[in-house]
């Protein structure tokens, strides 16, 4: 049964169809939420809120794009808003280091390539980081990213290019190990 048929059955009030629609999409939504949050509790919260909003607003889904595209746009909005709130809170509470400072100051203390890569990804500006995770890690196309983030696919390509450039700079110490 495809999404279109499932959606029609959900609109007709079939609880089993809701579960089937959820089962068909939950893996990618949870993966996306987890990649962005890096925390199981947050990923569960974001996934939960995404599906609740999707079911609440299903009547507004016109089928002009794929259901997955529509759903992932909700998921990215939920995750980004949640992370922004978290960031504001942490900033007030702990006055954490600025992202660039984290990369620079921890470079010598943390020689492990994977950890340095994780720090460098964390330090990317929000837009670059989101596009990088969606494209290079989760395999979304630029068209899908554009639809999810409400940006042009060209903007997605440009942000990915800048994200990679920043990561290349942040990981320059490891160039020999990386490329060699």
């Amino acid at each position: 049964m495809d999404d279109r048929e499932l959606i029609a059955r959900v609109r007709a009030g079939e609880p089993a169809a809701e579960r089937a629609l959820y089962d068909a999409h939950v893996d990618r939504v949870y993966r996306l939420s987890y990649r962005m949050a890096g925390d199981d509790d947050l990923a569960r919260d974001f996934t939960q809120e995404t599906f609740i909003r999707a079911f609440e607003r299903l009547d507004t889904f016109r089928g002009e794009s794929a259901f997955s595209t529509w759903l992932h746009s909700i998921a990215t909005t939920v995750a980004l808003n949640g992370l922004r709130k978290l960031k504001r809170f942490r900033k007030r509470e702990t006055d954490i280091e600025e992202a660039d400072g984290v990369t620079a100051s921890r470079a010598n203390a943390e020689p492990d390539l994977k950890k340095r890569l994780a720090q460098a990804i964390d330090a990317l500006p929000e837009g670059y980081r989101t596009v990088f995770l969606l494209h290079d890690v989760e395999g979304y196309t630029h068209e899908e990213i554009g639809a999810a983030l409400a940006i042009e696919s060209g903007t997605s390509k440009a942000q990915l290019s800048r994200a990679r450039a920043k990561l290349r700079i942040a990981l320059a110490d490891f160039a020999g190990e990386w490329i060699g």
Partner: protein
Amino acid sequence: MNENREDRFERELKRMAQDYHRPPETPRDEMWARITAERARRRESMKVVPLRRWMTWSVAAAAVLVLGVAIGRWSMNVKEKNPGPRNEEMAYRAAAAPYLTRTEALLTSFRAESRTGKVDADFAAQAQDLLVTTRLMLNSPAARDPRLASLLQDLETMLVQIAQLPAGNDRNDVDLINQGLDQRSVMLRLRTIGPTPGTSHRGAL
């Protein structure tokens, strides 16, 4: 970096980045249970709130009427010896005291429980009930006292935030509410609000 090195860098970057926030297996059944429970809770609150609001207004109005009549009869006897505020204001003062006590109890419990982690969903329902009375108080002669009016406005803001907390609430939302309580000194003001010279709350709060 020539073209080959660039391509290789990007390929290795993608490969290595797979370990970044690598998701565990999707807890699909657990999340589905939470989703259905939360949707049911939200549906229920949509049904219950108008009924509760109507009931609360009715009960509050009835209580005020009874109190007003009782205080009016009592004040007829003591009017000449001890002239005080008008009967209507007396009734609202009397109604404000239990409301402030309930609100203080709710906020105190909320703060205590929020330190332990997740906040029980019952707080949202209680806050919703108190919001109705808050609005009633703000629209009543009780709000002629600027100190009480200011406190009621802050309480309304806090109660709205608590009432809107989702089940499995966001820790940050809870922390922000607690910060608001601290920044506005809400608990202190709740505990210390008393008579203001020339206003109508003497003895009631």
